[in-house]
Structure formats: structure tokens, C-alpha cells
């Protein structure tokens, strides 16, 4: 970067400043309202600092049940979508011929489709077999696109796989199953962990698909969604604050980890 402070540099810096203001100001407003004693979420009608909304959250049974449901769904999504994504990645990386592109397009299509469509099609399809909306259907609907995410991650990893190792193991008399368990799975382990974390976060966060598949049940997010219609209170802001705190902690840990790695690399170099 050149040191010259030209007009365009200043404009760009101002622009970036505004951009981050656009990103963070709303979060600040939302977090602040969680500590306001006023009954309706607000930062302008300030009635003094309070922590009572945190206490209300702890006593809010529907929200607590929603959190439990969200975690059940997220775990179910991990269990269902990771094997599907992995299987799809294996088939796609080894399948030759012109069907490869078609299969690829079909398997990533859930990512290119609006979330509500995935929820609706799942609801209609399973409705024919008398499976009503609920947690199970939510797991299935969410997995249809989260599996695509994991598949793309596994494919990226498998493309860097050195097949010589597997060949060597086979030549030395290892069984196919042993090769898979002792060579392929350890090689994929970092991706399996990342994919599980991403699947978990995607599932917890999802609203557009879930709202169609959830039926009479609810997750944390659909419960928040229905509160916008009935009973908006600063309890929602408290949930926001908790999300913010978790995210900032996770992000800082991630940065620290990266920094440590960098320093270690510098030390060994």
C-alpha cells in the first residue's frame, strides 16, 4: 500500500468506516436494550439499567424448551448430513464421465434454492406418508442442504488426498475396511470436525426452512420469530446479547489460535 494520502484513499477509508458502522451499530442498539428497565425493547425510552430480563429468560419455559429442541435438531442434522455429504463426496470425486456434472449440480441444488422451498417440499413429500411437521421433519429438511455444505468441504479435502498411501496399505495386505478406518478417516478428521461445527451452527441459525417443517413444535429461532407477532419484550434482546458474547469469545479464541500458529511457524522457521 502506498503512503500517499490521496483523496480516493480518504474516501475509501470513510466508506469502510461507514460500512462497519452499518454492521455493528444495530448490534449495539439491540444489546443495549437488553439492559433497559423499560418493558418494550427500546434504547431511547431509558428507564435505568437492569438485569431483570436475564432472570426472565431463565424462567421462560418456552424459550428454554426451544433451546433444547434446537440442540436436538442440530445434533440430528450432524448425524444425518455428515454421512450423506461424505458419501456424495466419495462418489463425485471418483465418478468419471458426463454424469458427474449432472450429479454435482443436483447435489448442490439445495444450496441454490430458497430455504422456504426446501421446507415446503419436505413438508408435502412426508405429508403423503402421514409424517407431520415436527422435529424429525425439521432435521430432514435442514439436512437436505446442510449435507451439500459438508459435501463441498469433504470434496475440497479429498482432492488433496494422496491415494498412494491407500494403494500401499492395500498392497501390504490391509483390508478395504481397514484402509478406510485407518487411513481415510484420520485424513478426513479435521474436515469432519469443521463440517460438524458448521452443520451445528447452520442448523441452530436456520429459520426459513424450519418454519415450514416444524409443525406444532418449536425451536429457539421459530419461537423468537413468533414473539415478533405476540409479546415482544427485551427477553429477545437478552438472547441477542448472549449470541453476541458467544460469538465474540469464539472469534477471539480463533484469532488467538491463528496467532499462536503463526508465531510457532515463525519460531521454527
Amino acid at each position, binding site marked *: 500500500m502506498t503512503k500517499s494520502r490521496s483523496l480516493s484513499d480518504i474516501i475509501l477509508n470513510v466508506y469502510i468506516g461507514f460500512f462497519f458502522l452499518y454492521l455493528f451499530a444495530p448490534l449495539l442498539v439491540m444489546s443495549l436494550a437488553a439492559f433497559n428497565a423499560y418493558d418494550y425493547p427500546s434504547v431511547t425510552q431509558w428507564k435505568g439499567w437492569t438485569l431483570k430480563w436475564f432472570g426472565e429468560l431463565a424462567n421462560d419455559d418456552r424459550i428454554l424448551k426451544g433451546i433444547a429442541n434446537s440442540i436436538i435438531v442440530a445434533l440430528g442434522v450432524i448425524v444425518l448430513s455428515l454421512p450423506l455429504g461424505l458419501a456424495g463426496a466419495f462418489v463425485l470425486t471418483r465418478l468419471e464421465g458426463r454424469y458427474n456434472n449432472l450429479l454435482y449440480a443436483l447435489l448442490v441444488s439445495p444450496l441454490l434454492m430458497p430455504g422456504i422451498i426446501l421446507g415446503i417440499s419436505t413438508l408435502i413429500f412426508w405429508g403423503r406418508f402421514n409424517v407431520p411437521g415436527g422435529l424429525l421433519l425439521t432435521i430432514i429438511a435442514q439436512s437436505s442442504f446442510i449435507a451439500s455444505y459438508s459435501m463441498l468441504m469433504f470434496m475440497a479435502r479429498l482432492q488433496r488426498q494422496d491415494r498412494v498411501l491407500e494403494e500401499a496399505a492395500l498392497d501390504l495386505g490391509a483390508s478395504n475396511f481397514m484402509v478406510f478406518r485407518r487411513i481415510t478417516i484420520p485424513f478426513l478428521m479435521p474436515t469432519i470436525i469443521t463440517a460438524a461445527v458448521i452443520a451445528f451452527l447452520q442448523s441452530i441459525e436456520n429459520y426459513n426452512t424450519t418454519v415450514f417443517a416444524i409443525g406444532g413444535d418449536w425451536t429457539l429461532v421459530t419461537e423468537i*420469530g413468533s414473539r415478533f407477532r405476540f409479546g415482544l419484550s427485551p427477553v429477545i434482546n437478552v438472547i441477542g446479547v448472549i449470541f453476541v458474547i458467544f460469538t465474540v469469545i469464539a472469534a477471539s479464541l480463533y484469532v488467538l489460535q491463528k496467532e499462536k500458529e503463526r508465531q510457532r511457524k515463525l519460531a521454527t522457521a
Partner: protein
Amino acid sequence: MHSLIRSYGKPLTSLFVCLTAFWLLVMIALPQAFMIEHSLWHIDRDDQLGMKIDRAYSEMGLVEYDLKAAKTEKVRAEFQTRIDALKAQIAALEAQETEPPKIYGIHNYTKMSELHFTIFLKSIVFALMVTVLALVVCYPMAFTIAKLATPYKAALMMLGLIIPYAINELLRVYAWLMILDYQGVINSALAWLGLVSFEAKTWVPFLENPGSVFVALIYAYVLFMIFPIYNTVETLDKNQLEAAKDLGASTWKTHMRIVIPHAKPGIAVGCIMTFMLSVGSYSVPQIMTRGKSGDWFSQLIYRQFFESQNWNTGAAYSFSLVIVCLAFILIMMKSFKVGIRDIAK
């Protein structure tokens, strides 16, 4: 496929194939097919049916009366056939009442009212506007992070982008609601300046303007535009920028002739994702408008399913949305000359 069998053997390979097939068929293709099938029929409930049945009964009563009064055998037989015909007609009508017939056709697509069709078109136009706006807003950011900032600054900015994204979509949108609401932050600031008054309700009704949905949509999906562009711009050789500068190209020209052509796949992906997410977003318009301004198409779909219980119409509306998204993807792929492999990364 042979190399898969060679490495992992037949049992594992068939397991992979079965899982893939299950995913493809049971979770992707068949649900879509069932949705389309659902959109192609409707239950024909005739509103006049009850009246028709009543009329047939009363007519039969009259004929039966005539039958009793009939003198000759010939007239009697005539009345008898009329009664039989009426009986058959009533039976058919009653069967139709208890089990209305399923009629296949494009009825669900053609019966879309003018209002709903306007909303359909409006949602598409709005989503296109959001996409263009997001591109304009995000491109400078993506370029700065990829090429101008020092590595440390770039990492920090990346983090700054990811943190808001990690917070739930609903809550992100809700934060904007608090700012733009009638008695929200902006209106309060205006009131403090004496420009509006809460008592006289002269606040600026931001929420009744689709612009507020735009702001929240861009806010919600900013990352889907920035990341793909960032990824492609990052692979651009910095020397090309230096060379352009040395040869006297203006910033504008450098971007038009070098950066943007190089970033084409990223721009296409960013636009596809943003358009798809915006046009299909249920949460953002639902929260931002709170029923105060017009519905978006996604809200109409929701209503068809959960308020009017008309799944057939809902399925038809949903499939129309799929068609729009597919068309947009194909147009982008064609005009930006990118393949499916570039899109989903």
C-alpha cells in the same frame, strides 16, 4: 467408480452409493417432484353443490307426486324413468359432496389473482434491486480486503464481517427494526432535533417503505456477496494492478478492464446467492413490515400453507419461485460465462 471399489471394497462402495442415492432421491428429487405434482391438481369444491342437490330432491318429489296421479301405464313408465334419472343424478352429486374430485391441470397457476401476481412481480423486482445495491456496496469492501489492506488489517476486517453474521438472522433483522421503528432510534433522534413529534405522530414511517426491507436484506446477506467476490479478487496478480497504474490507467479503468473481468465468477455467485436469498426470504419482510406494509411473495406462500390451508396453491406459488430462481441462475451463468462448478464453492 472402479477406483472407489478398489480402495474401499464393494460393501463400503455400495454403502456410499446407497447413501448418495437416498439423499438425491428421498431428500432432493422426490420432494421437489411431489411439490410440483401437488401444484398441478386441486380439489373441485363446487359452492353450488348443496343447492343443486336440494333442487334435484324437490324436483323428484314433484315427479313422484305426478307418478301417483298418473292414469295410464305409459305415462307412469315415463315418470318412473325420470325418477331413476334424478336418483342417479343425486347420487353422483352427493358423492361429489362427500369426496370432491381431484382435478389435474394448471388451474393453480392461472387462477393467481391480479394482486398476488403484482406481489410476485414486485418481489422479483425488489430482489433484483437488493442484488444490485448489495453488489455496489460490497464490491469496494471485497476489493479492499483482498488487495489493499495489510494482512493484519485484512484479517481484522474479515473478523468484523463474520461476527455480525454469526448472530442469528432474525436477531440481526430485529436490530434494524429497533432502529427504524416508529419510535425507534432514528425517529427519536429526529424528535430530539425537533423535526418530528411522537405526540402528533409525525414520525417518519420507515417501515412502510420497502427501502427498510432492502436495508435489512442487504444487512442480512452481505457476507454472501462479499465472500465470493473476495475469493476471486484475491487470486488476481497484484502486478497486473501495478502495471495498469504504471501505464497510466485511472482507478476506474483498472477496475473495469482488469479487476471486474477477473472477478466475474465471484460476482456471478454473489449475485445468485443474494438474489435467491432475498426473493425467498420469509424472515426479513415478515419482521420488518410486521403487516404494516404490503406482503412479499414469500409471506403469501406462508399464508397459503398455514392460514388458508391451501397447499395446492401454495405449492404452485412455491414452484413459480423455483422457476424464477432457476431462470436467474441460468441467465447469470450464460451472461457471465461461468459453469456450475464455479458457482457452488
